[in-house]
């Protein structure tokens, strides 16, 4: 029993309540927020070490056996997503400290909502129960709706309504899958489901396949996979920059966490992973993301479309359904989420400085703000896979994974989309950074060093991880092994009850 697993949920919940009480005092809520994030960053780092040295951490809450109670389970993937989410929150917090916009949103329960979002993340990555997973996703969705509608103007309502409507349908699909799954196996504990599903599969394979695809579909909604993905591209450029930069990354990475779990635990032998369908959806997502990005003229919406393309890459690795494919996809999730959030923050800074989001009305940033342009450029070349930087290794790993299972079309797609994703970024580079400021554009403001800090913070993390790439690759490979090894998961969770 590892009782420490309740720490993140309890600290975040407690801080969310406290920041709600102190929501009028900005300074107090900022400090509370920072304290909570740092506590969880330290805890997350400790958990990373713990899962590496000690293996999977399991807590059966209240000492109930797995069939009756709720289990909390943490492995390498959980620790990684937790740390990633806390880092994104910290970057958004740093952004919020730089007084570029008027920060009116801070008075509308901004910090409590951010903490509730983090609470949702903690719950999603730690729970070992499907129904509990549903509840935590709802916590996350409600916090995200609150953040998207900060201010309550028409733009915010438009974005918030679009997002909440699609996610409501996603939740209902997940709920239906939970109900059917309970009817099939008599439990919603992930380990028990995984354990008993094999027997059910021999008697009624089509039922199991239907339920599993319903799960994939509804989790795909959260991870922004194409048919139900446009909540991101339609909404992420509307809220304040600090919200936009973290929301896309956090929501898709937790969505993918659920997908990894389903693919690892439910699509185990003898149920085949629908590799072809996943690869097709991934290819569509990537194409729509990259080509959609080309068609936009709002600077942050371009990045929102690239976030969609990134979701396609991650799904592509998952769809290969091999250990190296999943490892590449975890690597991708880590790097591209950080990089795209950094780009989103930097583009938001440029937007606030230029007083407009339309790239045709911007220009001359390289001449005015060389520092900002440099940080943006580093994130940009890393994202398109220039050699010493993090994004390259993720793409290389994906390419190798595709070649090793002889999916040449997939390999071609990875190379092609990477080249294509140069285009929208080059478009930003040319329009916003390189060309002269149009004469009819509003007079831009000047940036100071603090405005770079949030972007720099995230880019620095990527650079650091590029330096220690050996360890990161090894970590993601072992994480992929843990994801795909369903019998070990079952043994760890059920064995911890027997050990008491």
């Amino acid at each position, binding site marked *: 029993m590892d009782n420490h697993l309740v720490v993140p949920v309890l600290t975040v919940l407690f801080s969310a309540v406290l920041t709600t009480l102190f929501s009028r005092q900005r300074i107090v809520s900022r400090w509370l927020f920072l304290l909570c994030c740092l506590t969880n960053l330290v805890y997350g780092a400790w958990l990373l070490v713990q899962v590496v040295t000690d293996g999977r951490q399991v807590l059966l809450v209240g000492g109930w056996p797995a*069939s*009756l109670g709720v289990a909390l389970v943490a492995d390498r993937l959980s620790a990684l997503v937790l740390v990633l989410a806390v880092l994104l929150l910290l970057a958004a917090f740093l952004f919020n400290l730089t007084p570029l916009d008027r920060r009116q949103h801070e008075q509308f329960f901004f910090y409590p909502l951010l903490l509730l979002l983090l609470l949702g993340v903690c719950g999603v990555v730690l729970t070992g129960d499907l*129904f509990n997973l*549903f*509840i935590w996703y*709802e916590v996350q*969705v*409600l916090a995200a*709706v609150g953040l998207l*509608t900060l201010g*309550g*103007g*028409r*733009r915010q*309502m*438009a*974005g*918030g*309504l*679009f997002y*909440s*409507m699609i996610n*409501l*349908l996603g*939740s*209902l699909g997940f*709920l*239906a899958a*939970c*109900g*059917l799954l*309970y*009817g*099939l196996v*008599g*439990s*919603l504990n992930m380990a028990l489901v995984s354990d008993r599903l094999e027997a059910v599969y021999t008697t009624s394979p089509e039922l199991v396949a239907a339920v599993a695809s319903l799960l994939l579909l509804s989790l795909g909604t959260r991870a922004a996979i194409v048919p139900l993905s446009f909540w991101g591209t*339609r909404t992420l450029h*509307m809220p304040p920059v600090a919200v936009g930069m973290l929301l896309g990354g956090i929501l898709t990475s937790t969505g993918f966490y659920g997908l990894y779990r389903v693919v690892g635990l439910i699509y185990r032998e003898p149920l085949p992973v629908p590799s072809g369908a996943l690869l097709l959806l991934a290819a569509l997502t990537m194409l729509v993301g990259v080509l959609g990005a080309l068609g936009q003229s709002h600077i942050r919406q371009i990045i929102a479309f690239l976030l969609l393309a990134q979701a396609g890459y991650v799904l592509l690795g998952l769809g290969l359904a091999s250990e190296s494919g999943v490892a590449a996809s975890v690597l991708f999730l880590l790097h591209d989420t950080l990089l795209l959030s950094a780009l989103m923050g930097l583009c938001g800074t440029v937007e606030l400085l230029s007083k407009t989001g339309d790239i045709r009305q911007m220009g001359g940033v390289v001449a005015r703000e060389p520092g900002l342009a440099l940080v943006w450029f580093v994130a940009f070349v890393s994202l398109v896979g220039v050699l010493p930087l993090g994004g390259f290794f993720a793409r290389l790993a994906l390419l190798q994974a595709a070649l090793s299972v002889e999916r040449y079309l997939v390999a071609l797609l990875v190379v092609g989309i990477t080249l294509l994703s140069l285009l929208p970024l080059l478009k930003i580079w040319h329009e916003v950074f390189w060309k002269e400021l149009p004469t009819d554009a509003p007079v831009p403001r000047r940036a100071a060093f603090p405005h770079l800090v949030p972007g720099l913070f995230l880019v620095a993390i990527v650079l650091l991880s590029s330096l220690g790439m050996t360890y990161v690759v090894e970590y993601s490979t072992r994480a992929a092994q843990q994801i795909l090894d369903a019998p070990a998961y079952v043994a760890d969770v059920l064995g911890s009850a027997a050990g008491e």
Partner: protein
Amino acid sequence: MLLLLSCLVGLLSGTAIYLILHRNLRRVLPGALLLLLAICLLIITAGAPGWGSLNNARLALLAADPLPQILAITALAVGLGMVLTVLALAWRGARLADSDDIDRVTTMDGS
């Protein structure tokens, strides 16, 4: 009885999807509510009687499995919360856009 309930679930969710595919928020939102109800009914219908949760084998034969009912009521509470949130957003969005056409409310030109 199971057949009847299953048909009811099908009828409810079919109606719900028909409503959700409309353009007007005043049809879409009741559709979402109806879909939630259909799924709660589905959870209860899908749960096998007296399975798993009761440790006492003799009791399990006499009583229904309480877990699907708990799942259904939790789902109902959470889902109603979500639907109400969407309803609040839709109400405000429709007033601001002066229309309940879903395309008008969710697309933005200008601010």
